[in-house]
């Protein structure tokens, strides 16, 4: 008898939740479900107008999104699309809108301020694009004013460069087995430091290419327990600059979730390197590096591409040291916009609050990716 009642209750509750979800879906859920704005297409309030606009963005309905803007006379639809997806190939070009949040900041009868947080999803993680939108009332509708960010345009020109480049000829299949092959680059871990965090053990360190040739590097670490057995093995994945030019140093970070430092007796480090063809360009200058103090600590700066080629994606790795020069933390961020020659692009890397209080000095390195890989 009790079981039947429970079954009936569960059925009714399920039907009720389906009806509620259908009539009043959360915007992100509606977008994820492939809604076409029917649920959030209303513009009777500032939030609804921005919700509808963001929903159009999530469906790549650029024309529809553009048509809802109040200030579309200030820029073309192409300018709007370039603002969203990037004028040049970059992380934005290959991103999809994962979710969005709309936060009202201020409202009056005819005007409102709304913060739109667009979280874009990419192969290297998500990035956040936060825009403060003014929303104005036009008749009985509200329409957002898009704060367009026009990417600088690089005029057509020829920039002569005399960049250094390494090419490699490896031994061939016809060579005698005793014949020489090109030597793998010599790399060395110059610093290594395990840290216990809430999520587990983190192994931080720095790797130096002490050779005169470029190296493709990676670092693997194995945590060993008291009895010498391996607890866990992990590698630096993308928390490292994989391409190291001669005498270049990269930080690395390896995370071991759900492992306590008290379990660890020793750590076996295994840096690997292989010789790759590479170019010394582009050179990226990192200007105005600053660490804003905790709380809400961020490592910020501007990347300036000093070379003549566009850089599609830049990966900034920040290394943080305490007063004694001990490595404290490694954090990273990918830039979502392409680095054009001599055009600053800002980066902002969050630093955990407790660690930020210990930081005395910091250092940044940049790895760049452009079509054609290391060539």
């Amino acid at each position, binding site marked *: 008898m009790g079981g039947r009642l429970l079954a009936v209750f569960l059925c009714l509750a399920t039907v009720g939740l389906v009806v509620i979800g259908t009539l009043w879906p959360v915007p992100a859920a509606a977008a994820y479900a492939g809604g076409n704005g029917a649920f959030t297409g209303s513009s009777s309030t500032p939030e609804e107008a921005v919700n509808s606009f963001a929903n159009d963005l999530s469906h790549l309905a650029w024309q529809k999104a553009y048509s809802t803007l109040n200030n579309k006379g200030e820029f073309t639809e192409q300018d709007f699309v370039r603002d969203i997806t990037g004028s040049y190939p970059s992380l934005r070009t290959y991103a999809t809108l994962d979710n969005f949040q709309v936060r009202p900041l201020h409202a009056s009868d005819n005007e409102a301020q709304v913060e739109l947080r667009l979280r874009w999803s990419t192969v290297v993680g998500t990035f956040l694009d936060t825009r403060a939108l003014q929303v104005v009332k036009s008749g009985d509708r509200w329409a957002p004013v898009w704060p367009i960010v026009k990417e600088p345009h690089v005029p057509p020109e020829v920039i002569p460069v005399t960049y250094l480049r390494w090419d490699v000829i490896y031994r061939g299949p016809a060579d005698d087995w005793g014949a020489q092959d090109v030597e793998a680059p010599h790399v060395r871990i110059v610093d290594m430091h395990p840290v216990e965090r809430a999520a587990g053990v983190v192994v931080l360190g720095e790797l130096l290419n002490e050779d*005169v040739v470029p190296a493709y590097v990676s670092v693997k670490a194995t945590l060993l327990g008291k009895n010498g057995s391996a607890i866990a093995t992990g590698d630096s994945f993308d928390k490292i600059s994989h391409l190291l030019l001669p005498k270049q140093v990269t930080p690395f970070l390896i995370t071991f979730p759900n492992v306590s430092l008290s379990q660890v007796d020793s750590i076996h480090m295994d840096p690997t390197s292989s010789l790759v063809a590479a170019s010394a360009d582009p050179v990226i200058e990192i200007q105005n590096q600053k660490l804003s103090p905790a709380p809400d600590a961020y490592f910020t700066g501007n990347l300036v591409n000093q070379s003549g080629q566009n850089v599609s994606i830049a990966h900034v790795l920040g290394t943080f040291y305490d007063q004694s020069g001990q490595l404290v933390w490694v954090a990273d961020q990918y830039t979502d916009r392409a680095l054009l020659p001599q055009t600053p692009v800002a980066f902002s890397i969050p630093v955990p609050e407790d660690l930020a209080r210990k930081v005395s000095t910091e250092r940044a390195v940049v790895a760049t990716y452009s079509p054609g890989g290391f060539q």
Partner: protein
Amino acid sequence: MSRTFSLLIGIAISAAAVPTLAQSGNLEVPKSVVAGSAFSIETQGSGQGVLYIVGPGQVLKRDVQLGQPIAIAAGDLDTAGSYLAVLTGGSSTETGEFDVAPATKPASLSFLAKPSRLPVGLQNGISGAVYVFDAFQNLITAPTPVSFQLSIPSESVQSRTVESHLGAAWTEMNSGAKDGNARFVAQAGSISATRVIQQVPGDPCGLKMNAKKVGGEIDLETDPLRDCGGNAVTDGTIVTFTESWKGGQTTVDVPVKHGIAEAAVPAYSGARISVATGVVMGNEIRWGSQ
């Protein structure tokens, strides 16, 4: 294909012949012959017979006339190792064992030189290992003198002679003081093999930069980068310039071009500018009030 087939037949026959060894007479074979050389096997009796010679990687089959010596021509048996000869004829089977030894004259060398690239001034940094082979690619196990020579441009030649042990000889050499390509030669008899060892500069020594103001920026330029032995540091080596001022920092990693590294950073009064490459620090400049 036919050789493989013969090998299989030979192995089968020799396997069958071994249990009957006690019942059969011994074949008179030389105890040892040199790989590739001619020799003969005496036989007894009369009539027709078949001789099988089975060894590592090689099998011979001959129809023979019993009572006549069997001639094995030069080059017929060229793989070193232990062999079994089986002579069948009539109702008897004779067997004999002998060794084929490698020739003593080296004909080729396998020369392993490591590393192919290393910094200057490294004690015992270069190792060379040689395997000595005869004309039929048999490892010559008899002691053979092998000489190693490392010649570095504008430096004296390092040379050593080592006697091989069970076919292998090895040595260690120091890298020279000057960068460049060193020739590493191993020689046994009249046969030699050459490897090239690239000697590269060591870490920079006395890294020093200069600064001058150009417009709103500071142009930074290092003196020509050299290691402690005076060798020019390789182009492409990364030099890091760091400018720190109150509340901010600018860094740039630039490759050495034509022996120097240069960069431009914003001019901030009171900024401290440092230079480093790898783990080597250079001088520091304090940019005065402008």
